[in-house]
């Protein structure tokens, strides 16, 4: 019997968003402050030394998509991973496991809420950015699509991380030791074409490069990689995460003993 219980999904979704607003200082103000600091340091202080900008785009404006990605990627992962790890850690997950709720409701609820938070953050950051730099969005529809896909897929990834982790250390080590380096080395603040070989080729193995450049293309119409490739890889990552979560629910891995 496979039915989707919209009310259950909505309940989880609402609960998760309420939880975010309960901790609004941490989940909304902190990323905004961090982003502002990046604008001040990179955009204003360093950017003013770079008269030519990058590929014809003013440096302050050039880093907007990268900063956006940095924030929504990190926040999606941390929101979704904490969202599911905390009830596992405290034991409160018993309620979810004993409820007539399947994988679809759980995903729509937890991941939907995490992605929604990321979208709200993205909007706040874009508004914040207007106070520091002039930027424009060449392809607003694709920009929205990219932000949505990145929020959703990294929320899914965070959800898997939150189920896999059996300690707070593991929960924070993946974002810290894997995601952050990949993001910083992925051309968030620079064009990878400015890198010398072999670093430029090596950078192409970094999946974040495709995300940043996809997003940057939607802003300025220029990119280090083909937009189709960016979109394709993002969708592939999304599909892998959905597959992983479906497997987790089917086997009960780390959820049911």
């Amino acid at each position: 019997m496979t039915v989707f219980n919209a009310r259950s999904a909505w309940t989880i979704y609402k609960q998760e968003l309420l939880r975010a607003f309960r901790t609004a200082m941490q989940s909304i103000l902190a990323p905004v402050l961090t982003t502002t600091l990046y604008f001040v340091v990179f955009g204003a202080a360093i950017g003013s030394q770079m008269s030519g900008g990058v590929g014809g785009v003013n440096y302050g404006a050039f880093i907007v998509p990268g900063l956006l990605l940095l924030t929504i990627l990190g926040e999606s992962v941390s929101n979704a991973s904490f969202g599911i790890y905390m009830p596992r850690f405290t034991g409160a997950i018993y309620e979810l496991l004993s409820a007539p709720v399947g994988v679809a409701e759980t995903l729509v609820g937890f991941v939907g809420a995490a992605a929604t938070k990321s979208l709200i953050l993205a909007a706040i950051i874009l508004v914040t950015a207007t106070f520091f730099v002039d930027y424009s969005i060449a392809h607003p529809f694709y920009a929205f699509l990219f932000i949505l896909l990145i929020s959703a897929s990294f929320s899914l990834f965070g959800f898997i991380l939150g189920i896999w982790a059996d300690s707070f250390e593991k929960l924070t080590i993946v974002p810290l030791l894997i995601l952050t380096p990949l993001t910083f080395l992925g051309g968030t603040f620079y064009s990878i074409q400015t890198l010398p070989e072999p670093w430029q080729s090596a950078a192409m193995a970094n999946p974040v490069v495709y995300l940043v450049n996809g997003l940057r293309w939607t802003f300025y119409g220029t990119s280090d990689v083909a937009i189709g490739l960016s979109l394709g890889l993002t969708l592939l990552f999304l599909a892998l995460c959905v597959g992983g979560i479906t497997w987790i629910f089917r086997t009960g891995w780390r959820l049911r003993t």
Partner: protein
Amino acid sequence: MQPILEIRGLQKTYANGFTALKGVDLTIRKGEIFALLGPNGAGKTTLIGAVCGLVRPTGGSIAAFGEDMRRHWRRLRARVGLVPQELATDMFEPVLRSVTHSRGLFGLPPAPALIEEILRALSLWDKRNEQIRTLSGGMKRRVLIAKALAHEPELLFLDEPTAGVDVELRRDMWKQIAALRERGTTVILTTHYIEEAEEMADRVGIIRKGEILMVDDKAAMMDRLGRTEALITLAQPLADLPEAIAAYPLSLSEDGRVLCYRGGGGEGGGAGTSEVAEVTKALTRAGIDYTAIDIHESSLEDIFVNLLEGPEAPAAGDRGEAL
């Protein structure tokens, strides 16, 4: 009448190789309060978890409301409620929102009047806007009960509902559970407090090391296994048991001052007390004077302890000879 829950050959071996359930058979009748009694680590929580979807059984079957739990988990789980042993919930949530959330999670439309009734019945209504973390331990447990009742389950599991709760609150909890039965809810509770099973349950199941040792009506169990114990304090110490009373199940304390009677089990009650009367007459006839008689019927606790120490543990002291 169709049983509300039917468990057949339920097995659970954990990934680390520990076998928590060794083929448990259990039938629960609609409308009863069933107490699953057993020491820590007996498999009580695992058994509940297997029914509620927290534990994946490695063998056997579970049918609830006449349907296979594994196949129809979605619609069956909607009719089952669980109050866990640990006080685990989002402690930063206010009471009312947390309980309302529980109902929504089970896919039911909001029912503010029902939630209010549940909270009032559990004396939580005045605390409805307070964060759960600010409540006392007993109140927190009531919140978990309210959460489990929010979707109006027909079958409710209470895992150690009174663990770590003081005497007054425990009595209070018993009242709440009795009220649930009045409303037609079938209740399965686990406990290692014998008093609780004795006070609450219609039927009692005794579980040890993943096996059900005995399931019976509480009254029948006490009848069948009940015993009379009498301590007769003698005026003068005796060196040995006199010939005149040797036929009775008596033993003499080390200092020879107290005669201890243990017997009267088996069919019906009263056999023990009348036998004690015979013993006293025999003592009088033999000219043995006594100054006091202390007589009592064994409780479920004695039965329980005897069963648990029974076939496996070596008979320890005077407990052992009672079986």
